[in-house]
């Protein structure tokens, strides 16, 4: 529809002649959809990759002697642990269908759920 409108020669002419006369046409409904894409859910950066690389660098320097890299190892493990717990929590939330309350960035799943409940008028 949009294409046909744009291609319509007469209209084209009209538009080009006097830009002030351009009339607004509502081609798509002027409201947001009740849905967001779930693609942005997963962050591109994997967890703890940075810590891992630091650790590997240290390993390389010290020929894989763990005792000399205890600090790096510790950091990595703390990170991995934290990530693991977070993952577990997230999974549990999904399983139980929990919705976080009073948080500013919601996951797409939560947004979808809320939008479904309270759609745009």
């Amino acid at each position, binding site marked *: 529809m949009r294409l046909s409108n744009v291609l319509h020669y007469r209209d084209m002419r009209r538009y080009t002649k006097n830009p002030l006369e351009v009339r607004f046409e509502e081609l798509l409904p002027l409201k947001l959809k009740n849905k967001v894409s779930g693609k942005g859910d*997963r962050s591109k*950066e*994997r*967890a*703890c*990759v940075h810590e*891992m*690389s630091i*650790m*590997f660098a240290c*390993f*390389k320097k010290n020929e*894989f002697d763990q005792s000399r890299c205890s600090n790096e*190892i510790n950091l*990595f*493990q703390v*990170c*991995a*642990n934290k*990530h*693991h717990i977070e*993952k577990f929590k997230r999974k549990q939330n*999904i*399983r139980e*269908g929990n919705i976080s309350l009073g948080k500013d960035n919601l996951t797409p799943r939560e947004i*979808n*759920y809320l939008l*479904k409940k309270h759609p745009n008028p």
Partner: protein
Amino acid sequence: MALFVKHLRLGLIVKHGFHPLPQLTAAKYSVYPPHYVEPVFKKQDIDKLQESGEIENYKLVPFKAARSNDTCSVFHDPLVSKFINYMLKKGQKKIARQVLENTFEKIKRLQLAKYNRETDPERKASIIIDPVIIFKKAVSNCKPLLKLTAVKRGGSYYQVPVPITDKESTFYAMRWFVHCGREKDKAVSFADFMASELINASNNDGRVFKKKLDLHKLCEANRAYAHYRWS
């Protein structure tokens, strides 16, 4: 009418469509009802519970029966009994336990010989003779930090290093020990082989320790794929 009912049922599904299904499929094998709690059979643990006052919470909670290898004895060690379970074959726990005890005896013999040979009193004191401590040290020395998992990306599989939990790494270490013990020469007994292996591992040496290093090196080589992993 039947058609209508069908629609109705469909409607129900649609209604709940975006709720994930509860886990109905997971088969429950336990004979105890789900609200039964694992027993706390070590006296120290119960004392700890009592000190923190948590014991009040368990007043009305039913506990599962203690299993037949649990005891509050001083000599009982959960890690050791776990290791026995890992190394047993066809449920022959009696034999597995016997073999591990022989291993411990052997460790003690070797260490005692070392101890008696040593003349310097300071060094003498530093020699650990207790086989259980040696065993624990060996296991903790052989625990890997990472593991490799195969992830399919663009039609080919990549070996991706992934961090692992503490439990899993303990399991890996113990499994390597068991496999290493099984790959030994036939002329050597499991106990002898294992004893030397454990002592070596406790000194950051030996086959199992090498295996861990190999894994780490492989992980290091594949670290470029780290961002391929799920989550």
